[in-house]
């Protein structure tokens, strides 16, 4: 595994250009930037700067891994500021959604849009899974796949021709260093600041759920939705037929939801174009 410093980030196949709106995609536990490939490429080829980092200690980014959602949020804010690209839209999946939420609360002036995908707060991790991430990674990967994909995806019928999505996810988790998944899951489990963070969000926000998500079911996101202030323009979208791994199970529907959302609330950088 090649590591790079500063942290690796994927750009959707396009170079970064000043003056464009910027979207920062934040992956979930035990993952890397590659979970965002399809959505990233669309934004990048439609006038956006795309930054999809591998979080510290994940994928191609060197460690040390950060052990709390708050620390990761600070890292995202610093990383985004270091890009010198102005305000950024934040899109996060699962653990990444908590990081995005906390970052949007900590630096509201730097965030143009907040997109929470497969998100609930708090995000407790079932004890058997948390234990397995430490004692038996292989078992943990199986449990995650079982809960992350809708029944249809469990037997294939992939949205991406010829790909076995659950196997792809399992290999991606295997590729991360030992302990990475456990520390990510523990960070999710320990995070209690979701409601406070939501209350401080001032930018337009999207809560994107999948109808068959067993990790973060749409119903369970209601308390988080209620925590956003009335003044925040909060959109809620539920994708039918997909599970927690919705970016791969229903990549087009996820892209449409993200794209429609940012188009409905153009930032100043978007309007300049």
């Amino acid at each position: 595994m090649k590591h790079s410093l500063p942290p690796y980030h994927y750009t959707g196949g396009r170079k970064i250009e000043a003056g464009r709106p910027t979207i920062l995609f934040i992956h979930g536990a035990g993952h890397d930037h590659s979970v965002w490939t399809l959505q990233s490429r669309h934004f990048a080829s439609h006038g956006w700067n795309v930054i999809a980092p591998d979080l510290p200690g994940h994928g191609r980014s060197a460690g040390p891994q950060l052990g709390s959602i708050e620390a990761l949020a600070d890292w995202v804010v610093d990383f985004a500021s270091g890009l010198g690209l102005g305000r950024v839209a934040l899109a996060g999946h699962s653990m990444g959604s908590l990081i995005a939420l906390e970052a949007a609360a900590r630096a509201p002036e730097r965030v143009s849009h907040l997109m929470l995908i497969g998100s609930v707060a708090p995000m407790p991790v079932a004890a058997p899974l948390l234990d397995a991430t430490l004692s038996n990674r292989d078992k943990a990967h199986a449990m995650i796949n079982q809960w992350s994909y809708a029944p249809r995806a469990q037997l294939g019928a992939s949205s991406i021709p010829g790909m076995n999505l659950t196997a792809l996810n399992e290999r991606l988790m295997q590729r991360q260093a030992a302990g990475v998944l456990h520390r990510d899951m523990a960070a999710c489990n320990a995070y209690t600041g979701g409601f406070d963070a939501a209350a401080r969000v001032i930018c337009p926000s999207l809560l994107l759920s999948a109808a068959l998500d067993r990790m973060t079911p749409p119903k369970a996101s209601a308390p988080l939705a209620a925590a956003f202030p009335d003044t925040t323009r909060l959109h809620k979208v539920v994708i039918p037929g997909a599970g927690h791994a919705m970016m791969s199970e229903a990549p087009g529907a996820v892209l449409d939801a993200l794209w429609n959302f940012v188009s409905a609330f153009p930032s100043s950088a978007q309007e300049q174009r």
Partner: protein
Amino acid sequence: MPIHRNAGADTLALHAGQTPDPVHRSRATPIHFTTSYVFEDSEQAAALFNQERAGHVYSRISNPTNAVLEERIAALDGGVGAIACASGQAALMLAITTLMGTGGHIVASRSLYGGSHNLLGYTLPRFGIHTTFVPAGDHQAWRDAIRPETRLLFGESIGNPGLEVLDIPAISTIAHDARVPLLVDATLVTPALQCPIDLGADLVMHSATKYLGGHGVAIGGLLVDGGSFDWEGSGGNFPTLTEPYDGFHGMDFTEESSIAAFLLRARREGLRDFGACLSPMNAFQILQGMETLGLRMERHVANARQLVAHLVKHPLVESVSWPELDSHPDHALAARLLPKGCGGVFSFSLKGGRKGGTAFIEGLRLFSHLANVGDAKSLAIHPASTTHFRMSPEALLAAGITEGTIRLSTGLETATDLIEDLDRGLYAAQKATA
């Protein structure tokens, strides 16, 4: 580390990759006999070409029927995905050309299907890709043959013609020590008997023409990626996967997909440019065969065991070569790596030499005399009078064949009928050589 299966093998063989289509509710996999797919609008068309959206554009690159087959074999083999090809040979060629160009080097088992041997030994050198052949079981020879420019190790689960069993865990370790992937041709075993990726292989290919299709009606090949090989961590040896490709938007395939870079390049370049795609009709026929793969392989193995048991004690039979026999050099390896059985293909040598072999073949009524294996129907061939007929007795011996060698592909018929047919052939051989 093997991939978890989301269902048992027989369930996957019936369901993986397909759900009833939402429009017509067809239970069987529809045959999408179309070259191309209507774009929703210009925006969607551009998004498909730029790989912003998943979907089908042109059936040389992907096809919905083929995609079911690809997912099904990937699910069975424990791979992250697969590509359906026009033949097993096309699958092998696709694997090689995705990994290397001129100057590339392959280390391959000497015990290969003749078509693969031709490709590696005679054809690819014309394009600057060279192969060193080594004895399948000589681990030191594998190690010694690896050069700085080696990009692939290749062998068959059960080799040809001696049915040598490849020690996949050991050879994959040798490959990985050299930061090179191992490709295994699993045609003679299928996922019903062995999943090479679970044993350490990185890539698997099948001639789906054989047991997967199982009925001798469709030519096809499948290339499966285990998704476990770290291309990026191989010291720049695989620039086709780790460097920007001008032929597809400057895409760096490992950056695009940390896990499935190989398949991405193989589809985006190999299928697109070399064009050895599978017909969706063939994909459908292979899928039909795969639905009963587990049942069929059990019967192939059971029948082969009965035929072998009959032949080993027959006075006209000099020897029988099958890894399940104690007498086979790889018997212990087979017991470890192929506990469900060694398939239905085996060979035996008649005492009557070339003349006896010819008479045996002509005496058969149920076995079909032809050059194929893995059919539901039993097949027989006498290499000395057909595939190897130009070779001298000495050259035949060097290839592991005698003048009296017969290769059988045991079918699914009633075993007693097959034994009766073998006796018919043996009687003819006896008469001819008396």
